[in-house]
Structure formats: C-alpha cells, structure tokens
C-alpha cells in the first residue's frame, strides 16, 4: 500500500510517498527528509525532545502518524533561524546557557516558541515551568531554560510592538 502525503515543512512544500503507514512524523523528518535537528528521546511522548510545531501548535512528533498529517504545516528547529540570524528564542537559550549536552534543546526551543505563541503564561516563572513541563532536561538546565523563555518572550513582544508602531 503506497500512500502519498503533502506537507509544508519549514515553508517548503514536500510530497512524500509512504510505503508503510507506520511511519511517525518524527521518523519521516529524520530518516526521509534529513531534518535531524528534531531529536528522538523516549519515542513514547514522555520527554518532549521531538517537539515540533504542527499547524502552529507544539506537539510530540513521535506520537503523530505521518500519514494522518496530510496537508499540515510543520515547523522544525531547522526552520527558525533567518539565514545566519538566530530566532530570538535560540538567542535567549545561548545567552542564558539554557543547556548542557544539548540533546533536549531543539525540543525545548520548539516548545518555548509554541508556549510564547499560546500567550498564556505572562511573566510568571512558575507558569513558564508548568508550561514547559513536557520537556525533560536530564542535565538539569531548567533554571536557564526558564530565564531564556522569559527573556525571549519579552524581546518578541517588544519586536511585535515595534512592528505594529
């Protein structure tokens, strides 16, 4: 059974033939489309390393069957930077030393981008921690991650205000 699906990935339209419906969105990105920035940690929806934006919302790509996402828009860590310029969330992670080994970082950053777009947490560090609890960091860089998310949110809202002005 061959199944053809169309996805927009980081702004580029892709058509993919799936020989087998068992392929997850995570495996499709990593194994078929050479987008290995998205990481496979637990592969069971528990660690958040595979977080991507699907139609603008953060999800665990390890639990999403690729075939079921036909027509969707996907943004991965590779789609954030503008050329050589880091996305504000990436820049804030560097500024706040929000990682050690880096394995969870793409998922943390994609989750933070999703969280900021959701607009629910304000400037409350407790709400940021709760909103980021689906992303585990075994190096324990949580303090830096929380600071980075708060700073990125501030800089994005300032940029938004400038753009609107």
């Amino acid at each position, binding site marked *: *059974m061959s*199944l053809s699906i169309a996805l927009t990935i980081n702004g580029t339209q892709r058509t993919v033939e799936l020989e*087998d*419906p*068992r392929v*997850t969105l995570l495996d499709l990105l990593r194994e078929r489309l050479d987008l290995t920035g998205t990481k496979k940690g637990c*592969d*069971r*929806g528990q660690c*958040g390393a595979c*977080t991507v934006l*699907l139609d603008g*919302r*953060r*999800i*665990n790509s*390890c*639990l*999403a*069957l690729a*075939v*079921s996402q036909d027509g969707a828009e996907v943004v991965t860590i590779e789609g954030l930077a503008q050329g050589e310029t880091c996305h504000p969330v990436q820049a804030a992670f560097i500024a706040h030393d929000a990682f050690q080994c880096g394995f969870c970082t793409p998922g943390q950053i994609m*989750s933070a981008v*999703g*969280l900021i777009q*959701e607009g*629910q947490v304000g400037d*409350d560090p*407790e*709400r940021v*921690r*709760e*909103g*980021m*609890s*689906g*992303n585990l960091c075994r190096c324990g860089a949580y303090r830096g991650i929380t600071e980075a998310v708060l700073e990125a949110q501030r800089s994005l809202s300032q940029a938004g205000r400038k753009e609107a002005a």
Partner: protein
Amino acid sequence: MNRFDYIRPATVSEAVAAAAAPGSAYLAAGTNLIDLMKGGIVSPQRLVDVSRLPGLDRIEPLPDGGVRIGARVRNADLAHDPTVSKRFPAVAEALLSGASAQLRNAATVGGNLLQRTRCAYFYDPASACNKRQPGAGCDARGGENRLHAVLGWSESCIATHPSDFCVPLAALDAVVEIEGQAGRREVALEEFHLLPGTTPERESVLAPGELVVAVRLPGAAARFAAHARYLKLRERTSYAFAVVSAAACLHIEDGVIAEARLALGGVAAKPWRARTAEAALAGVRPNSEHFRRAAEAALAEARPSGDNAFKIELARRIAVRALALAAAGTPERLPALPASPFAPIPGGALHG
C-alpha cells in the same frame, strides 16, 4: 509496531461502517494508541482515521446554558474556551492538570474518554494481564500495586482509569453521544465506563464500531460555576497521572449547600461519582466537619487491592480539601499549577 491498513473515511457513517470490521481501531490524535502500538500492547489490523471527520470539532453553546463538545476538540482548545472555562471551571482545571502542553494540543475529547489504564502490568506484554489477554491472570494483584484501585475492583483486575477530564464530567452529569451502525444513542458519562468484574477487557459500553461523536454538559451544571474545583495529587509537581484526585462542585445559597457534586479520580476503573457524599452535603453549612463526614461516606466502600491502603485516607483528605477549595470560591484565574495541592490556598489554612 504491527503492520496495519490505514483508512481515512470522509463521513461519520463511513467511519462507523469501516470500524465495525473485527480488528479495527479508531485513530484520532494517537497520543495513547500509537504509544500502545509501539509497545505491542495493542495491535489493530486496521486504523480508521477520524481526525478530520467534519462536524466533530466544534464547541457549541446550548439553549439551556450547557455546551456540546465535539469528540475531536483538542484538550487545550477546550480548556481555554471562554464558555467552558466560565461555566464549567472544574473541567478546564482538570484538563490543564493533565499530561503536557504538547499532548493537550493534540489529544482529543473522544480519545480522553477511551484512553487505557496506565497499569504497568497492562503495559508490559511479558506480564499476565486479564485486560490485555482475557484469562491470563493479573500480575498486578501480587505485584507493585500502590497506585491501583481501592473502589470497584475485582480479583480479575485492579487497574484505574487515568483520565482527569472524566472526573468533573462525571460530577456534572455529562452525557456521551455515540454513533453506531444502528444509529445514534446517548449514555451518561457516569455509565460509560465499566467496572472490571470478570471481564476487564470490556472497558466501556461501546459496541464494536461505535464512535463517540460528542460530550454534552447540561446547563444545570453551570450553577456550580462559582464554587467548582479539581484537585489532583501527583508523585511529581507536573506532568503525571493522579495518585488520587477529586472534582468538587458546590451550589451555595444563603451560606448553606443547596446541592453538592463530588467525584474521585485515580481510585477505580472509572471516574467515581460519590453520590452518598453529595447527599450528606445537601442542606448543611460548608465547613470542615461536614466535608470530613462527606469524605468518609465517599470512601465507605473502599478497600485496598494490594499495598495501597494509604490511598483510602489520601482520597478522603483530597476530597475534603477539594470541597474546602470549592467553598472558598472558583479563582478568577486558574493557579499557575492547576489542580495542584501545592498552589496557594485562598483564605489560608484548610486544616481546621
């Protein structure tokens, strides 16, 4: 994961027809199903993808003040819906205390009702499990069972239903709309899940091929909006299933409880409506003595299924605290840690 056929029907009736074939399973977001398939715990021969079916993605206010929630509405959308969070705040709090933001963005209403137990023996194909393989036995009975059921369990199965969302739904008289080959029918949420008895593999009233299409909350449930809370004790601060939880909803008139609703989570194979506790609260003042008496009534039938006697007293205390929080009033904004016993307590001490 086993091989399977993938079908994406265009309508509810096509879906129901396709899923009536033996070995079929519905796929919505897949946040539980794909996990179970990866572990070899379930191995459907055919997945019927209902994630795009038209008409199932709406939250519709009803003329009676209630709300009809389509089965594929996402947990996050439901929790942040202005009507739901205003009229049924315990539902929003329960949803936001469950899983992670990523999972809440994907997981659906129908899938939440039908999620499987997180019993570790159910999840381990090398263990005996009557639910996974009828007649195989239950390794949980003599195993690590501190988190297992204390109400409604049987010798065949001591697993619990893991949903947070279903707990306030049971308390608030929610109704499940079901579509099958024989047409549409409705079942009270409280009757939707089955206790294990001798057939723990049967977890709900759904017949093969039947599809949950919506959940309805009646307008009468909105009268508790000013005094409605969900409280959930977990083994870590966030992103964990309940050890025990409680939804408490009070309708207070002139300083007296006119009507109370109480349901418990994490204690049985279904969300546990505590009707004797509700009766004990009707017409009394909302104070700790009455809350304690109601909690005693709620757990009167409880007995340990293993190394979990502590859950009975814990459930009483969570019920008392949920009732006290409800009496103190629904907060204007949900706390940073929804449903958490670690959240600040309005009005101070609850241990009086």
